[in-house]
């Protein structure tokens, strides 16, 4: 056996992938930080500099505060609702003795393969003025005019829950599967009711999965900007929309870079805090 440190083979195998990450992610992040100090001159034109004007604008302008507040709120609601409704099916799949459990698992993974934009726009058919709910209610004569259920914050959150719920269920399921099946019967033998056994044994042991799912849903929801464009009204923009507009419509590159750095920092803090308490392996495990 060779000594492990002198062996170059793993590094040769790794170099293409690591170079890709370095060139396409790490260096670009560095440049993003540098550009955030540049001065915006005109549409698409900026001047290299080292000044904090963009950052001052970011911290001072209520427009950005509103976007951040909106994003944190929507992402939190989405993650919490996903956790609440995602736990039950995960628990069912993990504990059922149903012979076709694989089918339930397959159905759980299936939404990942259905295009995000199709899943998002499908809610227009559910909530829209020509959607199924309005069509049914008007068909049986309960409504004269279609109910306006689309193009508000509710429909944006609905679309995001629909998109993120499978991540949550999968995360919780993975940690429920890992629980020793003898623990609950043991608790029951010792006199706990089914509910007590759940609260004292199953729930605490599944917390890592629940936390990983919530983190993932929160981070993914906070980065979204396409959902509000499709399902939201004019006031339902998120931080991602502000970045997209700043960069792609206003061509204000320094401010776009500043906002992206801010977003990365904010979500980075969340991830680091999570990693400190839970470790990221849980998230990785369920993604694989």
């Amino acid at each position, binding site marked *: 056996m060779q000594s492990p440190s002198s062996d170059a083979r793993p590094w040769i195998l790794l170099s293409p992938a690591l170079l890709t990450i370095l060139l396409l992610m790490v260096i*670009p992040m560095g440049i993003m930080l540098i550009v955030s100090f540049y001065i915006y001159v005109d549409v698409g034109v900026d001047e290299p500099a080292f000044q904090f004007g963009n950052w001052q604008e970011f911290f001072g302008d209520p427009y950005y505060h509103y976007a951040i507040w909106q994003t944190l709120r929507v992402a939190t609601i989405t993650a919490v609702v996903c956790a609440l409704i995602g736990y039950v099916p995960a628990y069912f799949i993990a504990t059922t003795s149903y012979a076709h459990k694989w089918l339930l698992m397959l159905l759980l993974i299936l939404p990942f393969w*259905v295009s995000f934009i199709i899943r998002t726009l499908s809610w*227009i*058919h559910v909530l829209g003025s020509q*959607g199924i709910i309005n069509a049914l209610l008007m068909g049986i004569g309960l409504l004269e005019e279609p109910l306006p259920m689309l193009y508000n914050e509710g429909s944006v959150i609905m679309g995001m829950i629909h998109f993120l*719920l499978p991540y949550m269920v999968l995360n919780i399921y993975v940690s429920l599967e890992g629980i020793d099946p003898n623990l609950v019967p043991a608790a029951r033998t010792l006199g706990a009711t089914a509910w007590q056994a759940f609260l004292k044994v199953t729930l605490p042991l599944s917390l890592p999965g629940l936390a990983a799912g919530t983190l993932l849903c929160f981070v993914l929801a906070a980065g979204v900007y396409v959902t509000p464009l*499709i399902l939201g009204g004019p006031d339902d923009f998120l931080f991602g929309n502000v970045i997209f507009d700043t960069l792609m419509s206003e061509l204000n590159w320094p401010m776009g870079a500043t906002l*992206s750095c801010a977003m990365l920092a904010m979500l980075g803090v969340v991830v680091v805090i999570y990693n400190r308490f839970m470790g990221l392996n849980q998230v990785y495990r369920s993604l694989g």
Partner: protein
Amino acid sequence: MTGWRLIKLFTVLVYLFMFAPIMIVVVLSFNASMFGGFPIEGVSLRWFVELYENEAIVRAFRTSMILGTLTAVISTTLGILGSLAIVRYQFPGKVWVNTALVAPVLVPETVLAVGLLLFMRWLEQPRSFMVLLMGHVLVSLPYVVLVVQARLVGIRRVYEDAARTLGASAIQTFFRITLPLLMPAVFAGLLFAFTISFDNITATMFWRPPGIETVPTQIFGMLRNSISPEINALGTVMIVITVGLPLAAGALARYFARNPT
């Protein structure tokens, strides 16, 4: 037990919540009506025909297919090589390397998109198909690494050692033992990367050069007017591709595993 009944009922409702809206898109794509929504006025395949005759959509479709295929090949090659190193070798800094490979998952796609765009601007490169392709490789690589690693762990060194002991050369061993054992991981990686690329819109809207549309950005552009029946038909086609393809591949794999030729 009523508690269990409730859990079961709730589970059914959650599955309904996940699939009913998608089913509605599929059903509406066969609607003969001029409008994209309800009511249903008859069954027709005309929107699929119109889809096929719509040049912009066919072009977007071709772009997405080429982009997805190239992304899948590049991303899977990089992912398999990297995963082999991690699963097969012990080396210092392994944990860090693994974290680095999966890191793009934790960075919001919007930020990845802005970063790459700024980098290209700094290099004075215009947005091009190449940039889009590189971006898609970056976005799909961590998923490929995760999926492939999970499947590689099962392939043990002893099989190769056995082949070598029985007199096979290193090259023979690779092609007759290692590669066939790797195939499931390769296919999983390819399918995953293709689906991610084919589906991506968040970063693609930043990276795509003017005039180039992928299927999702094309749908997004069409949505700006109103939801047309063509969009429903296109949605159905996309579902058939991204769901039907992996399902068929999985079923085939199972069939061949059971009936080796």
